[in-house]
């Protein structure tokens, strides 16, 4: 099977100016962290191992992955996967980014009175740029299809929803929706507009069971599937003591600190401020609690991505909040961490927190479980669906600081509880393995390609 994949976020971001102007690069000849870095974030973290496994098990022959990568070589390869970098002019990129950010907020329910609805947004001049980006992706995929004769188009994430309709082919198309799709947030009058795009796909995959019904209620008539996101456990290695010590030293973490880790991009929806406010309450009873925030902006919101640098502004706000609550020395921002340091952060932490106001899934919780850490998870995160409250972690209301503080204190004061909960998490994470994901994805793709009823 020849497969075409399309996602906005590119797997690889190039650091060297020289590479950006090249037409073709073999990434395996380059050095990670010097010439390139892997994009953080759930989508690429999930899709890349999936494609590697599909190639290993000969489920696919050729794979092309098309994504927005304005500062990358036009084409590059990595581990047998071929990549095509979509480029659009700066003005269109800005317009696209603005609409995409607003859409992301809308589907996460992060709106206020000034936020336009999806239908209002689709009349903004910037929406023409959002449309343009999708058309460029569709045109790129169509051109590649002439040479590669793909068997299937697999399109990822909400920004790319219009791409399927624009592809203008009856070849099978599958769409994976990675963020929340909640009928309570998506009003019925958006249905005709959304359904027009969704119905261009033979199948739609969502991350949580509850999104399936919402999808049908909002007008999708094709096949719907639910597959939990997944990660390749082999990618997560246990760091040496020296690496963990180096990490602790770098971020001024003492041996007796109880480290609470939050790995998420710097965005208000991720609830860093909620974690700080809960910490302010918990630290009164557990003064050695220390919160470590790992991550910078997303591909869109970081300076190195699309340049919509809202991450820096959010960090500034959080720093001021921590200072005002007397937590200046209790909160650490590490920014982006390369793989080795991230492993050390997971290993060193005592517990993990994900207090998101809204979260499509939250694979970072699975990562914490892999390291045997207990978790405190927002009830608004998709992964809360598989957290057994009190056994594999605590599910908390992100708007209730007291409840979160209580969970922090309970875990901080009880080492045995942390160990038991961490061990239970290590068992629970099996459901999020790449092996299970691969099996389920393969079944869906087979259904779609073979046209099963």
């Amino acid at each position, binding site marked *: 099977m020849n497969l075409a994949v399309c996602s906005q976020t590119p797997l690889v971001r190039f650091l060297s100016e020289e590479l950006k102007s090249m037409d073709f690069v073999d990434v395996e000849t380059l050095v990670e962290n010097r010439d390139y870095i892997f994009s953080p974030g759930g989508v690429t973290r999930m899709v890349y191992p999936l494609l590697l496994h599909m190639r290993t098990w000969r489920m696919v022959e050729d794979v092309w992955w098309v994504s927005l990568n304005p500062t990358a070589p036009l084409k590059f390869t990595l581990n047998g996967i071929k990549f095509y970098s979509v480029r*659009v002019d700066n003005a*269109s990129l800005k317009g696209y980014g603005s609409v995409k950010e607003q859409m992301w907020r809308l589907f996460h329910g992060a709106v206020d009175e000034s936020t336009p609805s999806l*239908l*209002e947004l*689709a*009349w*903004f*001049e910037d*929406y*023409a*740029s959002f*449309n*343009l980006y999708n*058309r*460029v992706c569709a*045109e790129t995929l169509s051109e590649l299809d002439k040479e590669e004769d793909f068997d299937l188009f697999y399109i990822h994430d909400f920004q790319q929803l219009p791409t399927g*309709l*624009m592809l*203008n082919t009856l070849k099978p198309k599958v769409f994976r929706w990675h963020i929340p799709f909640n009928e309570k947030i998506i009003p019925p*009058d958006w249905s*005709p*507009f959304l359904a*027009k795009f969704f119905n261009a796909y033979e199948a739609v995959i969502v991350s949580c069971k509850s999104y399936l019904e919402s999808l049908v209620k909002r007008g999708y008539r094709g096949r719907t599937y639910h597959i939990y996101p997944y990660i390749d456990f082999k990618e997560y290695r246990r760091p040496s003591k020296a690496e963990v010590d180096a990490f602790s030293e770098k971020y001024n973490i003492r041996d007796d600190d109880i480290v609470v880790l939050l790995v998420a991009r710097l965005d208000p929806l991720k609830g860093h401020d909620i974690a700080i406010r809960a910490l302010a309450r918990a630290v009164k009873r557990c003064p050695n609690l220390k919160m470590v925030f790992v991550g910078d902006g997303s591909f869109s919101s970081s300076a190195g991505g699309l340049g919509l640098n809202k991450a820096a502004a959010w960090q500034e706000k959080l720093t001021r909040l921590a200072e005002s609550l007397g937590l200046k020395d209790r909160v650490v921002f590490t920014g982006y961490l390369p793989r080795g340091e991230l492993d050390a952060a997971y290993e060193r932490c005592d517990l993990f927190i994900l207090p998101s106001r809204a979260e499509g899934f939250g694979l970072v919780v699975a990562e914490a479980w892999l390291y045997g850490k207990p978790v405190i998870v927002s009830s608004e995160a998709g992964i809360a669906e598989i957290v057994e409250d009190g056994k594999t972690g605590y599910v908390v209301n992100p708007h209730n600081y007291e409840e979160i503080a209580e969970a922090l204190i309970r875990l901080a004061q009880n080492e045995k509880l942390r160990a038991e909960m961490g061990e239970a998490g290590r068992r629970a994470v099996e459901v999020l393995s790449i092996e299970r994901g691969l099996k389920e994805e393969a079944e869906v793709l087979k259904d779609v390609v073979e046209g099963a009823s």
Partner: protein
Amino acid sequence: MISLELANLTDVVLRIATLAAILFLTFVIARLFGAILRRVLRPIPPLLADQAVKALSLFIWIIGLLLAVGQLGLNLDLLMVLMVIAGIALVVAARDVLSNVISKVFMGVFVPVKVGDYLAIDGLSGKVIEINYLATIILMDDGSIATIPNAKFVKDVSVNKTSIASRRLSIPVSIKGTVSLPRAEAELLKLVYKYKAHLDQRFPPIFTVKNRGSSSVEGELDLLVADPEQRETLSRELTVKIKEVLDKLEGEAV
């Protein structure tokens, strides 16, 4: 003897030069009249305008070629008579086919029918599942299909029972291969946004590619007007504006 051969040679060269001049003039006239006709036909759908320009160009070339062949000293009378007879025979033989093909061009713009609509015509009713160059295929309630010649939609009364049919507006758009499709689409959307007040804002405009030729992309801009009475006026105005936008983009591309 030599002067006679020289005179013959001069005559041949002169005839060839005249023939070349006629062909060149035919080319210039065909282009010129094509451009004028295209400008005159701006308010009508581009597909229809293209067909008219092609027909005019063909007519001019036939006249030009006949005149050119005449320069070679051939008797054209018989050729002309044969061509006229063949033309009449072709039109008579294909009149039904032609009327259906021409009707197809009008459908969607002047006769509001699209795939997916539920309609009734000539005592038949059902869902439209296909509109091809000859006929419109209707899937009837009992599962059987009815094939309605397109010309019937122009001649007879049809009832479109789809709730939004009276307000739906599909404008055919032809984008030259020299123009970037993503850019043209973005500019067309921006143009439509200016008419927002007259459109149903619950249905933002969507551009769909229908056919991809070697020299152009044929597409359709789908809108929903707020007031059905403004549908035709808006269609006419937008068609002209769209042509202006595309002409400008073509000019920039050149």
